[in-house]
């Protein structure tokens, strides 16, 4: 293994010369916190190595957020000698893009040749209009819900959970909330001077370098796949309807342009499902008090009905059955839908290297729908002998030797039967960009999901590299693969490296 020595010595500096054939691809996971930043370095005979940067971000309000990102950007600059051949922005979440905000000047001083974005990011893309409309509507509604929940002392504690989910998009209460990451994307597209490519799944594979081929797996083209968040066998058509807005005041918001689910008339219709003659003002009913003279009840029987039965007063023994605050649970559900929608819009890539066609699978934050859609088509490529070949997602999964675990190891971002269980290679290694302490103790989230972690450890024979914990303990890796693994893997405080043989 020619790579051995360079691995052991591997520091912040880039390989000195282009690696020769039979060398390795270096996969580097930066350790910024809960967030993704991966640098793949491919050897190029007779030329400087080829660098691909996939995402650069850390979760909103991570400790020392800005400085960590700037340190990482500085290291990227020195590791690549200031040239990034391909920069991939997988999806519009803060924990994948914030580095380009915090270290914009550092990236701006580098030469970035190509920017790859998912097809839905193409300005004016008509097939994504529905998605943008729904996203906007959800963001507006959730922002409103959050503001309302924070005002109500009874709801403030629960509002925190909602806020945290929304922070995937950045600061949910900032006036420019919807603009923040949009601005990063604009900058990537327009200001870097790079060639921008919008990738669609399936079709022809991208011949990146001799011996390096890229397959775009997602995001799905079909709307239904975006809406798939669960893997249901008997109800394959199940998907979510998004036009459900329980948040008070939401219906009064102007509809987003092109939002086909909620048009202006629908909003009016929904504001009042019944004609006004049926309406009894809830505030009046709440203010109703038992009158001194019983015959007065007969004058307003309906107010009396609700005034005595509903449970307006906190201490009247009926308050436990009230439903006024149920909308917060609705808002939570909508926040999850928004989160899943964006995750499903991830640009997931399979990168095939070397004669053995080993695969590095960069799953971004793809959730169920994105994974399933990958199986819906095939790719065409040209073999080294010049023959035309057809490649399926199952092929790619079967040859995967390095799996960048989706969505920080949450339970629904790694498909079981049509995902992990198809990764049958003996060489499989997993990298999880997760900070369990931050996810669990600060956010209270189940990341990484214990069941998935067990499955990954089992399938990789213990070769699981984590952003927070670094390399696994020697004893945790099964003996037959231990030596080879620890020769190919290394760590520093700033990153973990793994050399994928070509």
């Amino acid at each position: 293994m020619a790579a051995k020595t360079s691995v052991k010595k591997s520091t912040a500096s880039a390989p000195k010369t282009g690696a020769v054939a039979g060398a390795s691809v270096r996969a580097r996971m930066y350790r910024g916190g809960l967030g993704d930043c991966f640098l793949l370095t491919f050897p190029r005979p007779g030329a400087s190595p080829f660098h691909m940067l996939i995402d650069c971000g850390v979760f909103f309000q991570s400790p020392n957020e800005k400085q960590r990102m700037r340190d990482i950007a500085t290291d990227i600059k020195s590791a690549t000698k200031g040239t990034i051949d391909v920069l991939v922005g997988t999806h519009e979440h803060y924990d994948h893009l914030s580095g380009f905000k915090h270290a914009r000047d550092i990236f701006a001083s580098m030469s970035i040749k190509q920017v790859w974005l998912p097809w839905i990011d193409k300005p004016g893309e008509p097939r994504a209009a529905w998605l943008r409309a729904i996203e906007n509507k959800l963001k507006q509604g959730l922002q409103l819900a959050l503001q309302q929940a924070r005002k109500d002392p009874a709801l403030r504690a629960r509002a925190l959970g909602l806020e945290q989910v929304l922070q995937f998009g950045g600061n949910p209460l900032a006036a420019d909330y919807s603009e923040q990451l949009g601005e990063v994307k604009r900058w990537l597209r327009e200001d870097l001077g790079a060639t921008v490519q919008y990738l669609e799944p399936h079709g022809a594979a991208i011949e990146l370098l001799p011996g390096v081929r890229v397959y775009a797996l997602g995001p799905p083209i079909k709307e239904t796949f975006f809406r798939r968040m669960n893997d249901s066998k008997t109800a394959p058509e199940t998907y979510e309807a998004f036009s459900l807005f329980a948040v008070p005041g939401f219906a009064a918001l102007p509809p987003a342009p092109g939002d086909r689910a909620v048009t202006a008339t629908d909003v009016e219709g929904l504001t009042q499902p019944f004609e006004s003659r049926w309406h009894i003002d809830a505030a009046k009913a709440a203010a109703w008090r038992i009158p001194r003279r019983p015959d007065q009840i007969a004058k307003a029987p309906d107010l009396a009905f609700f005034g005595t039965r509903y449970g307006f007063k906190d201490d009247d023994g009926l308050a436990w059955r009230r439903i006024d605050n149920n909308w917060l649970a609705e808002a939570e559900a909508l926040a999850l839908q928004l989160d899943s929608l964006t995750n499903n819009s991830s640009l997931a890539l399979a990168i095939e290297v070397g004669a053995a066609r080993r695969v590095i699978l960069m799953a971004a934050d793809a959730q169920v729908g994105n994974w399933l859609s990958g199986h819906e088509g095939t790719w065409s490529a040209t073999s080294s002998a010049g023959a035309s070949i057809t490649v399926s997602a199952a092929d790619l999964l079967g040859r995967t030797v390095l799996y960048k675990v989706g969505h920080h190891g949450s339970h629904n971002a790694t498909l079981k039967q049509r995902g992990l269980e198809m990764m049958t290679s003996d060489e499989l290694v997993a990298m999880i960009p997760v900070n369990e302490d931050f996810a669990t103790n600060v956010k209270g989230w189940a990341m990484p999901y214990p069941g998935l972690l067990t499955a990954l450890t089992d399938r990789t024979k213990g070769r699981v590299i984590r952003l927070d914990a670094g390399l696994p303990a020697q004893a945790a890796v099964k003996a037959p693969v231990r030596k080879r693994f620890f020769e190919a893997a290394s760590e520093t405080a700033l990153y973990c490296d793994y050399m994928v043989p070509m």
Partner: protein
Amino acid sequence: MARKSSRVRRSPVRRKPTVRKTRKQVVPVTAAGAAVADTDDMRRSRKPPHRRLSAYALDPGASTAIDTALINEVVLRVRWEEDLTPGPVGEYLEVIDHDPATGCFYPPVDLNDPYLLAQDGLPPSEGNPQFHQQMVYAVSMTTIANFERALGRRVYWSSRTDVSDEDRFVEKLRIYPHALRQANAFYSPVKRALLFGYFPAEPADRAAQLPGGTVFSCLSHDIVAHETTHALIDGMHRRFIEATHPDVLAFHEAIADIVALFQHFSFPEVVKHQIARKRGDLESQSLLGELAQEFGRATGRRGALRSALGGPDANGEWRPKIPDPTDYDTVFEPHDRGAILVAAVFDAFLSIYKARVADLFRLATGGTGVLPAGAIHPDLVERLAGEAAKSAQHVLTMCIRALDYCPPVDLTFGEYLRALITADLDVVPDDDRYYRLSFIEAFRRRGIYPRDVRSLSVDSLRWRQVSAQDASRDHFERIGQHLREYVQQTIGVRRDRRTVWRREREICEKLHGVIARQPPHLMDVFEETSGLALRPERIPAGMRTKESGIGVFAVDSARPARRAGPSGDSIHQVILTITQRRKLPIDPALPVSEENSFWFRGGCTVILDLDSLDLQYAIRKRITSENRLIRQRAFLQSSAGASLRATYFKDPLREAHAEPFAFLHRPV
């Protein structure tokens, strides 16, 4: 006495006396009051058994199609509640129509309004919220009546556990017909309430449904029946909302669907219409085998929300679902898994129906069994529909009755099959129409087996009966005597449900004392029979003990059941449930903490025959079972126990404001 009669005299011609007063007035017969009592008697003899209320048989969607419009409006015959007040608020239900999203209340309907009494309540209408109130009331009461008939007792809702004794009883289930603005409806175990949503339709097929039109889930018979069933099961088995096994939540969903499906068959017009269209064949796609048509279409599906028989394939063509024996081992999402059980029960129903109508087909076809082309004779339709309705009512009754024969915790589908078979054997000793075999066959085809039986014969599926020599048999006699006394005071007497409930609490306490104070040699027998751990030397890890050193246990319920079989004999039983719990770490390698802990429960359902005071069955889930513990841990750690919501908002079942069904009912 005198006081009462004087009160009667003061208002001799009361138009609407409430029933409680009426009852009390019946007793005194004084010279002056004779006329009054007489009038009361006459009045009572005129009391209608039912209140007739209009409703949609399916949902408003069916009224917009020419084909189904004629049969979609039905009149439900709901038990007459004398004390019904506007709301409607009756003995079991209170409909409170609050729409928080608009900040409105909608005025309560008064079903005693003479105009409404004279015309089967309000006519079906989407635009009148008072009709919505009427419909949820009518369908919910119908579902309750089905349960009471099958169980042979009055039902009540799940009691509260977080308040002082007097407030624990929940007399009325609350119904909010317009609680949510979303494509959802659910039973809230915390609020003891049904919450129904409304939403703009977002159909995939725009020809079939108006996009953006408002869909009200409270106007779907199936959804109302489904949610009411959730509440009824929670009232019987409050541990069945704890996801301790993939089957538990799936079971809740399945029974709720089964009740909704079989209630379709109680609408004769719908059954006749569908039988005529399908020429007696209920295996092909029909409205009878599908649930929530309008809701399904409005949320972008090509057909009903769920179907017991099949569904559209990739091309939108309806295809029957072929039973797959591996499904039970591979499908874990609660609704999908529940669908396996629903399909099994529907399959059993079809076998029963086919056996019952085979002779009719032979008669109608001169023995060939092959129907000529074209419409079938209306008489045949009538007879087939009658058989279908009868079979459906039998199957529904069997399914509900079996709930009494389930273990109190951690139910599996296989155990439910055993409960079905045992319950039916008790009431119908001669299975001359092969109902039980139909069930076994249908379950077998779907790979649903109990874990612990030697064969799938009726005999081995029946819960183990306690033999005559068994020492525990005598032992339970003492318990039985207490129970007999209790039952005599409650059953058969028209007492209000609160009194019945309070008596149950008292007897449970008494039995708790009897069990806790039994001498050590009997304790041994009792532990073996019940699967509990009581004696100090038997206490497993994580269980609390009383001061006396005995393991903490609870007598959760003691419910009488009076069931009559087709041969005319009736059986009187009491069903006791006794449970225990242990706090254990989810990951045994780590210490118990707030996150790393769960309640592991065990216990038994004891069925006692009240006539002989014999212990009939003790359906156990051993609190000390290591196998079950391993299974439950594995389940809690598997992704089947998780959801995206759980990733972000912790385990919803642990939180005080949890709504397990709210999130179960939407695929988040």
